[in-house]
């Protein structure tokens, strides 16, 4: 290996600064959420306590955050499952051209680039005109799907572009039906990527704000609740909530990534014995 050039160290320094820029502020509120009971929104720390976390569990201090957390969690799971299923189906359909495929493709791209507030407003208007009540599990759910589906589909397109078709041909030669081929060959191979799609589906839904704003109805999701708090809560309880939900997000991300690593390892182990029994 050739020695590292000077530009490597410059760029590595830049990268380190970028990471500090990304994580620094969140770490700061993580520290500040342990402010003492009389501490303020900035340093210095006025003692160390879990006072503000304790406050989160008292209804009157912060409103209905646990209810909104439960709703966000349920909604995240709903959006995640539908995103995974529809992305896989869409990804498979798009492997060959069909009539209307490019129209649908541009609709998927449009879903990404249409400003979120328009989706919120439009869905809100439809429900208003049809005299239906907006609710997080109906209108909110659909609006969030317009944000998670394009990510899921783009990942699946990328996965299937790199997919080795000879596996399917082999399965077909061995007499597998199309469904058996999908169930026993295609899905196990793409499984780690599906976890990635699920991660996108859950986290993007769990943190979604703009598209849910006018479509959640009278029961807020967690981001809406937090946004409401930013305008009227001026104590570190806001940081405590921010820290908790960020820790929760990290926990979810960690879980998903661990599943991917385990799956990959298992795949590597079980695929490597091909042909080893012959010798």
């Amino acid at each position, binding site marked *: 290996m050739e020695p590292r050039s000077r530009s490597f160290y410059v760029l590595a320094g830049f990268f380190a600064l970028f990471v500090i820029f990304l994580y*620094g502020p969140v770490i700061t509120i993580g520290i*500040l959420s342990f402010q003492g009971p009389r501490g303020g929104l900035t*340093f210095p720390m006025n003692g160390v306590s879990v006072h503000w976390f304790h406050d989160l569990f008292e209804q009157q201090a912060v409103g209905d955050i646990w209810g909104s957390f439960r709703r966000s969690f349920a909604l995240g799971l709903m959006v995640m499952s539908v995103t995974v299923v529809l992305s896989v189906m869409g990804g498979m*359909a798009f492997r060959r051209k069909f009539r209307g495929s490019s129209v*649908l493709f541009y*609709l998927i791209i449009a879903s990404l680039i249409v400003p979120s*507030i328009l989706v919120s407003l439009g869905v809100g208007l439809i429900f208003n*005109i049809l005299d239906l009540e907006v609710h997080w599990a109906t209108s909110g759910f659909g609006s969030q799907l317009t944000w998670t589906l394009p990510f899921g589909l783009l990942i699946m397109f990328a996965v299937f572009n790199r997919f080795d078709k000879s596996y399917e041909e082999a399965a077909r030669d061995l007499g597998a039906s199309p469904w058996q081929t999908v169930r026993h060959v295609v899905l196990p191979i793409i499984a780690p990527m599906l976890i990635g799609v699920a991660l996108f589906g859950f986290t993007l839904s769990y943190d979604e704000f703009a598209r849910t704003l006018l479509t959640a109805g009278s029961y807020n999701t967690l981001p809406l609740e937090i946004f409401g708090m930013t305008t009227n809560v001026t104590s570190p309880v806001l940081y405590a909530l*921010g820290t908790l939900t960020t820790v929760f997000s990290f926990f979810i991300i960690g879980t998903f*990534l661990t599943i991917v690593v385990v799956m990959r390892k298992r795949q590597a182990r079980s695929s490597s014995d091909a042909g080893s029994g012959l010798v």
Partner: protein
Amino acid sequence: MKTTKKIDPSKRAERVSWMLVTPLACVLGFFLLLPILTIVTVSFWNFNEWSFFPDFILDNYAYHLTSAVTWATYLKTLKFMVLTWCFCAVIGFTVAYFLAFHVRSLPVQIALFLVCTIPFWTSNIIRMISWIPFLGRNGIANSSLIGLGVIDEPLEWLLYSDFAVVLAFVHLYALFMVVPIFNTMMRIDKSLIEAARDAGASGLQILTNVIIPLAKPGIMIGSIFVVTLVMGDFITVRHMSGGQSASVGRIISNEIALLQYPAAAASSVVLLCTVLLMIGVMMRFVDIRKEL
């Protein structure tokens, strides 16, 4: 005859494809296409203080497009967009370049890439709030600058200012540049760079003549993300400017708050056309289907 009864296999395949995309098309049809058509329709409707009703008037557009506030706001939003785009492009390119060409082992590359993407999966609102203790009047930035003797009095323009808005935008959206640029850079054949070096190109020449042209699709996709996210934003601007700065998204959200839905719809249509025009120009430089 038996052959005529059998379905043509390509037709069968097409039918399977359609069945597979039907749910997807339904979701996007009802929650994307129909809402946009509704917005376009409602933008011609009339309204009073308490309700809105079918009509065909152009007043909503006339009012929106002739208001000096609208034009000033568009100018302001464009300023935010250009500044954010510049910073995101430079940061995104540099970070992706470092990851793709200077980090040598794949596991390290993946790990560092994940470090860059994890914040994307956490809450934007929390990430915005987290700037308060840093930028505030008695925040870390001010106290350390005073401590170092650089300034005597705390800077007032750090928080609740245009500076804070752009900073938050860059913080939130730089990832949208890093990811697509890194993706295209990883597919650049390393032997091209060696060939350039053998032919006597300097490091800068390799960067400008080989890497940047080949990474252009990634830069374009990242730009599309950043442009649309900034143009449609209304919370970052409201939150980081302390309600002092306007943006196109905030005009719409204010009109919604006042229940002036037809006015909000007209403003939305204008915003959508602006965004689509910008994207249309950028799309000319990149074929997204090829980049997956």
